[in-house]
């Protein structure tokens, strides 16, 4: 009798645990975290992330350069939930850096992506500098003969 009581208590303790381990709702999606870094592995505070079909751009956290979401809202009113197995395409850009488009297959968990952007190299050595003229060229007189 005593053994039966203990068994009932044990089952009673386990049941709430199973209830808590229920998977997240399908409407929430799986969170995906993107961290944008520069070539020196420092976070780029001004980076933005955007889905190709999306109108808005999402700024990263200016401290650690990260952005996290589990759902995106498209211009046509539809929702794009991140589900395991789907391929996600994002455009990462920042002023002064080359824009990169990357594709990522969403997993069930631990969706953390680090991406580094190369700088845009500005080179003004290719510009040929003009020479200043003295401005001595005068229009020819009307009665002057043209040069031979």
């Amino acid at each position, binding site marked *: 009798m005593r053994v039966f009581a203990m068994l009932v208590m044990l089952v009673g303790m386990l049941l709430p645990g199973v209830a808590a381990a229920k998977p997240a709702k399908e409407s929430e999606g799986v969170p995906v975290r993107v961290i944008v870094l520069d070539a020196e592995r420092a976070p780029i505070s*001004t980076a933005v992330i955007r889905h190709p079909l999306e109108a808005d751009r999402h700024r990263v956290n200016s401290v650690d350069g990260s952005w996290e979401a589990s759902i995106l809202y498209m211009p046509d009113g539809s929702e794009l939930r991140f589900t395991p197995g789907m391929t996600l395409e994002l*455009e990462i850009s920042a*002023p002064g*850096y080359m824009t990169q488009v990357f594709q990522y297959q969403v997993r069930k968990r631990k969706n953390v992506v680090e991406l580094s952007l190369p700088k*845009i*190299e500005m080179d003004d050595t290719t510009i040929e500098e*003009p020479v200043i003229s003295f401005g*001595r060229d005068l229009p020819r007189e009307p009665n002057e003969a043209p040069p031979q």
Partner: protein
Amino acid sequence: MRPPKMFRPVSMAILAALALPAFASGWSPFENTFPALPCQDGWAACLVDGTVGGGVLKDAAGRPLPADARFGWFDLKATQNVSPFTTLSAYNGPIGGAVAEAPQPPPEVRPTRTPDSQVADTTQNNGGSTTSAEGGWSSGGKSPSDPSTGASTGGSTVTPTAVASNTTTTTTGASTSGSGMRPGSPSNPATTGTTTTPTTTTTSGGGMRPGSPSSTGTTTGTMAPTPGTAQTVSNTPPVTSNPTTTTNNAVVAPVASAPQDDSCDDLVKLEPSAMMGQLRVGQSKCLEGRVASEGQQTTKDKVSRIMITNAEAKGDKSEWERLMKRHLEDIDRSDPDLCFKYALHLSRGGTGRAQGVIRWADYALENKAKWSGQTYKTRVFGLYKLRAEAANKLWQEAEKEFAEGERSDEKEAKAAKYRGQAKDYAREWLDYAKASTQDTKTAMALCVSSSGNRAFCEGG
């Protein structure tokens, strides 16, 4: 028998070390082709028409050229420096201001006592009678007991026998004529002419101290003290230090420096100097005055251009920037070359100058029709590039300010505005690069970065 393995690296290292000197050839084979000194003959100043020039030479029309120019700037005719393979010219001037060459001293003259000739007044003879010292310093500085000077003490009279040739090669002024000699230094009795009357034949010149005992001629026979000789001979003008060969009686005329012409009426004449950055201060002041007072805008433009060219050739960037800004702001901004050059200069500065870059690039683009052909293509491409890069700098700055500082709507709006500007300018640059078949890589990167949309940039 093979050497042990441990010796192989050592022997390799020795071989490598021995091979090194073979490559270490000196510079000497190239010295003639690439001289270290600016002048073609190796000296710091150049020999032009037989005289040592002051750093420039002139072409057939009298226009100054750089000393090392081998061909004329204006007429492309060969100058005297056309051959780089000439050898060093002989140098016959004074070195380091010292006496170039002192004549050999005469054999020592031993005073002979002449008991009968007691006419010499030894009390007045402290240098009045000398053997030959030209400048007077030598004789006057001698100790009275020195028998070689002819001065005697204790009632002795000296009859010097050393006689010099009449004509000698001397370096006037600072050389043997006395100014270079110190009081008390040994005299050279053989450097001047031999005369029987110790009077006015002289080369004494500038080194003479008034009242110092001196004589010029070599006296023979009984010598009388001539304390006033210095006054009789000191009427020669001060001589220069140019080495000249003169006879004893020659007087070297002073070389008067010509007054510098600082006028600026003839602007064409000033152009060569301005191109070399060699306008004098007086000329620059004159030009500055003309810019301020000139009534015609076209003349102001010409004067200002000369000043800008001079500052650029001199490498005076701050002055160049000041003059260029004044020219574009106050005189004329219709020359796209000037606007382009100024925009390019500003683009090398920080973000604070980016607005200026955009402004002057816009002015240059307004007048781009003055260019043609390949010049048009490269200049317009460069202007679009400068403008897009400047806008990108401004956008970066605004985004950083917004992201890292305290966020506000104003800052966000400012960042968005600069982003839009950067996007427009990048797109214009990209479009022109595509149309003129020039490099589109950086333009595309900027466009995609600022628009955030590759399709926007790739679309026609």
